[in-house]
């Protein structure tokens, strides 16, 4: 009888170990705010986007071109500004995050500055062309032509690139987000700033 009890206990413990090993828990970011801060992969995620964006937009807001735009707005002639897609030159599939970044730039400029933003939605086919053409479209001359077609005096564009390295027991990706404001008419660079962050997978 005792032997049977011993056997049953062992069996039950084994089953419990098996079942608890499979258990998982789902949760929302609102239930555990740390979720949004945790790093799940080397991919560029929302937290990375926020971090790089913050550094760049703060610089833009404090820049001389922003001061100039505010002056134009006070004189009743706010400039028209278009925001073009951010070019992905990384080794990660982050197109979705980059499109979100463009929307974020537009939103903040609309809410916090007096300039007129030409919404991406209204750029329709042109933006598709910019994305399709990639490198040739990122030629400043070509972009200036697109800007002119849209009636923009300035356009904001940028690129994100990475330096990715791999060793036997680690993989590291350093992301660099480079943001520029260009004058459509002259092609002159009116603002540029680069922010960076590093992510790693260490064994």
């Amino acid at each position: 009888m005792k032997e049977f009890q011993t056997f049953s206990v062992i069996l039950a413990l084994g089953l419990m170990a098996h079942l608890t090993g499979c258990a998982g828990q789902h949760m929302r970011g609102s239930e555990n705010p740390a979720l949004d801060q945790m790093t799940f992969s080397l991919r560029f995620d929302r937290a990375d986007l926020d971090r790089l964006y913050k550094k760049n937009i703060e610089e833009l807001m404090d820049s001389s071109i922003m001061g100039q735009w505010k002056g134009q707005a006070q004189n009743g002639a706010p400039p028209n500004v278009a925001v073009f897609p951010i070019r992905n030159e990384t080794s990660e599939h982050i197109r979705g995050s980059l499109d979100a970044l463009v929307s974020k730039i537009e939103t903040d400029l609309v809410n916090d500055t007096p300039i007129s933003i030409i919404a991406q939605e209204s750029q329709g086919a042109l933006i598709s062309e910019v994305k399709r053409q990639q490198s040739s479209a990122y030629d400043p001359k070509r972009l200036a032509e697109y800007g002119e077609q849209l009636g923009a005096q300035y356009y904001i564009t940028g690129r994100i690139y990475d330096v990715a390295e791999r060793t036997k027991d680690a993989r590291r990706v350093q992301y660099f987000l480079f943001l520029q404001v260009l004058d459509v008419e002259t092609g002159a660079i009116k603002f540029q700033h680069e922010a960076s962050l590093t992510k790693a997978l260490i064994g």
Partner: protein
Amino acid sequence: MQRRLPQPLQHSTSAFSILLALMVSGFAMVGASGCATYTDHVREAKQDALQGRTQQAVERLNKAIGAEESHQYPEKLTSENTLMLLERATLLQAIGKYKLAARDMMIADQQLDWLDIGAQGKAKIGKYMFSGSSVKYRAPPFERLLLNTLNMVNFMAVGDYEGAQVEARRFSIVEYFFLNDESKTLLPESLALGNYLGGVAFEATGEYNQAARYYADAYRYGLRTSRFERRLVDLFRITGYGGKGKGDAVQQLVDRSRAGSVLSFEEYRKQYVDGELLMVVQSGMAPYKEGKKYPVGQAIAYANAHSYNYNYTLSAKEKSRAREMAVSGALKWISFPQLTEKGLPGQRNVNIFVDGREAAVFMGSNIERQVEHAWERISGALMVAAITRMITRAAAGAGAREATQQATGKSGLGILAQLAVEGSMLAADKPDTRSWSMLPGRIKLARVRLPDGSYPVKVKVAGRTESRNVEIGSGVRVVNFSRNR
């Protein structure tokens, strides 16, 4: 007065519990791992794929990973279902579901990084105690490179060159790492196709400097046709690509590019990019692994004959121990995977017709040869691990026997304990047959330039035809054919 149990019976109960625990854990291991190997788990799906029943093969893999539909993927990724995701991606690509195939490959790519980098130390212990298949799967270099190579095809097939460029960059990182770390398991052709497709991805969007770098590497690694040479000369002409100096395989092309007349980016685009149709044909299937029982003497001979890695060799003491155990009958054989082509179609003839005219086909990659080469280079070390495991198992069994005998004073229980330990380890000792087994045997390419319009493309693989209409306009079109293996 309270009656005390006699001491011997207490010992006996405790020993019985130990024995029961060992046997239960032994049975649990049998239950958990069974006898089926990875190859057994994908065998039917593979047969379906070979017979052209690709959708059915996808459904079998869906079932195996616990997904109802192909857009679902396993919540918890293990080594085995990560590999199955790769198998499914290969099949989804064959039936034209490129976005799903790309997603599966991206998930597998990330997961393989985790498996590569995380918890290798812990896994090594498992490898020596139980079986090669208990160790987390570490994809061989050619599989990691082909993952990014074939994912470039997925992205380019839907015209997403930005996505293909990301895959090209990922390919380069892995290529650089493996060239520094495990170049002996790589054949040059493992690198040629990925670089060639990387060149296509960058050339398609006008990034000619990057295209020149990728194409030059493809040429260095052996992908050479006369049309490709002409393209390279003109590409070097517009980019000023200078090669790597004396002894570089592309040097004569660099010299020719310097001698030629000036060419503009626009002229290059018109001549080499617009109207380009690249056809990728995947045929046959790569050799796979299946379990085999090697007599101990043969196993030792195998390990000696395939000893390329001096960190993994058997010591004279280990060899002698294994032979002693073989003579005593304690160790009869070693379960070990062998590479096989059993049931595979072998080399296939491939013919490609564009608008009724046969296109010149050239070799993109001979994957059969890469699989065989990589296995040749690593199998000796794996055999050493398998033999060491068997010795460890025998030692563990003997230890259990001694401990039980000491506790109970009964030799019969000691023998039972030994059998339980050895039995459970034997059950867990599955030969590791894991590999990306639905990779094609060969990837062939054809590239033509056509005026704008719609063209019928027919691809014949061993008499079976796959047809498609392709629209040609500005830019490059990439089409994949991998349904008929």
